[in-house]
């Protein structure tokens, strides 16, 4: 054995346990690192999963709230429609309490009246109803046949047939209302009778509708409105 072989053998003997230890330590370290990486990856996946689940839960919560609100809305619509139907005659009828409009303050009665008329003409009926109702309840001078007729038409447009009918009834009570002259009063009353027939028709009360049409023919045989019923325009 030469000197070189001896050294190599000794070195191999010396290095082998060292190398074995180094390899086992390195392997252990790598395995540990792998475990850590796996752990981090699983945490990351879990985090993403939780984020999605969290968002999905929020979605579900919002959807649940939405469903509840929708159910409440459907129920409220049904209950209110029934109540309004009883009070006004129509499911979608509106009352003075259901109009979110306040009349302008500091306006004189004639100005309010003009405002009401303007709203009536531009078919802003809710505002017209508030203005005219307030004016007629505050100032007796405005409780005329013409104004009651106009109020009736407004309530008819707002689907409050009960209130409309009441207003048309007021037109037909001459001592309670003022009119410029008898001719005008008769004209308003003829219109009111026709409107009452329309109200009855919408309430599906055919008998009542016929009654008011006959009443119109009896009381106002020569009125324009009568000519619409009796096309010849002659009294029956």
């Amino acid at each position, binding site marked *: 054995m030469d000197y070189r072989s001896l050294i190599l053998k000794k070195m191999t003997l010396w290095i082998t346990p060292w190398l074995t230890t180094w390899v086992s330590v390195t392997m252990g370290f790598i395995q540990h690192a792998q475990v850590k990486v796996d752990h*981090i990856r699983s945490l990351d996946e879990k985090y993403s999963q939780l984020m999605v689940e969290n968002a999905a839960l929020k*979605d579900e919560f919002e959807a649940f709230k939405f469903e509840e609100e929708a159910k409440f*809305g459907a129920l409220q619509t*049904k209950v209110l429609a029934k109540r309004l139907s009883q009070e006004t005659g129509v499911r979608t009828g509106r009352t003075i309490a259901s109009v979110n*409009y306040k009349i302008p303050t500091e*306006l004189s009665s004639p*100005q309010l009246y*003009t*405002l009401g008329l303007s709203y009536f003409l531009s078919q802003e009926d809710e505002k017209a109803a508030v203005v005219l109702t307030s004016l007629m309840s505050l100032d007796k001078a405005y409780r005329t046949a013409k104004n009651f007729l106009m109020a009736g038409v407004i309530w008819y447009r707002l689907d409050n047939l009960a209130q409309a009918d009441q207003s048309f009834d007021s037109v037909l009570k001459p001592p309670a209302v003022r009119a410029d002259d008898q001719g005008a009063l008769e004209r308003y009353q003829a219109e009111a009778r026709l409107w009452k027939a329309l109200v009855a028709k919408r309430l599906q009360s055919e008998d009542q509708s016929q009654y008011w049409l006959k009443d119109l023919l009896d009381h106002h045989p020569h009125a324009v409105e009568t000519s619409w019923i009796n096309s010849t325009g002659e009294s029956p």
Partner: protein
Amino acid sequence: MKIRILWSLATALVLVLGGMDLGEAKESKTPEVAEKQWCGSLEVFEGDVQILDQTRTHFIELKRRAPLPCGSWISSNQGWARLKHNAGPYMNLGAGSYIQLLSERSKSEQVVIYRGQIYVEVNEGDGVFQLGSALGRVKIQRGKVIYISGYGEKASSQLIVLEDSATFENRFEDSKKLRVNEGEMSELAFDLFRIIPQDPLPVSVATLKPKFFDLRVEGKVQSVAFNAAHRKQEKIVAELNSDVHSKVPKRSLASVKGKSADDESVSPAEKARLHQHWVEQMAPGVQGAEGFLFPRFNVKERAEKKKLMEELLRVQAE
């Protein structure tokens, strides 16, 4: 020997490292989207915006022009997003809002608003675009609107029209549809003992400003909306109020240079002139102002009456 040892070490290292998964980018990818139906795209966004797909199991990647599948759930907690629906309209989603995109072929709404506020632009040719919330439904043929659902503590829906017009209705009572024009707003709430939306009211500029800021409404649309709101505010009420606050105390609307039509010393000709002046003052620029102020019932009711009469006559004849 030495070489063998080195080779064995190298092989071991390669095997260990090769077997080791560094866990790079094995994130959950968005599901296969090829067969999905797209309903829109995300145009721009800012802040905290989240988009979940229709199955609510995957996030949609937030990037410009990211396609959004039908049924996507979009929430903007502390952020803002601009979306484009496939049907054509653009939508700006405000902070704290939550919506779901639905197909343009959907029979009811194309967008469901669960909470919050949304600004929608529908242009000519986009077709009728429908928005729905828990209580209300809005249909837009052409126009720019802001729709708010469930604001405040009470459940309600509010529609503000900035340009053109839109119809508004109760989802559960569609017999009455309300048309809301530009510069107007309407609200649907049950606390007013009614089941249809309120008649439109002029929208106040103060109400609009914070909404424009939150929804990033562009300046041009803002100025059009402000002008429309001003026009609505300046209607009859303002005119009347300005007369009430005029410097001349208790000045009659029908007076000219201190004279009143009620004054008995005024001649009939002067009265007629005062009356004319009053009419012009009350209804400026209105053709046939006399008829406007002193109306006979309009043609619509007459036509309605006539129709009824015809029906009655037919019934009687039968």
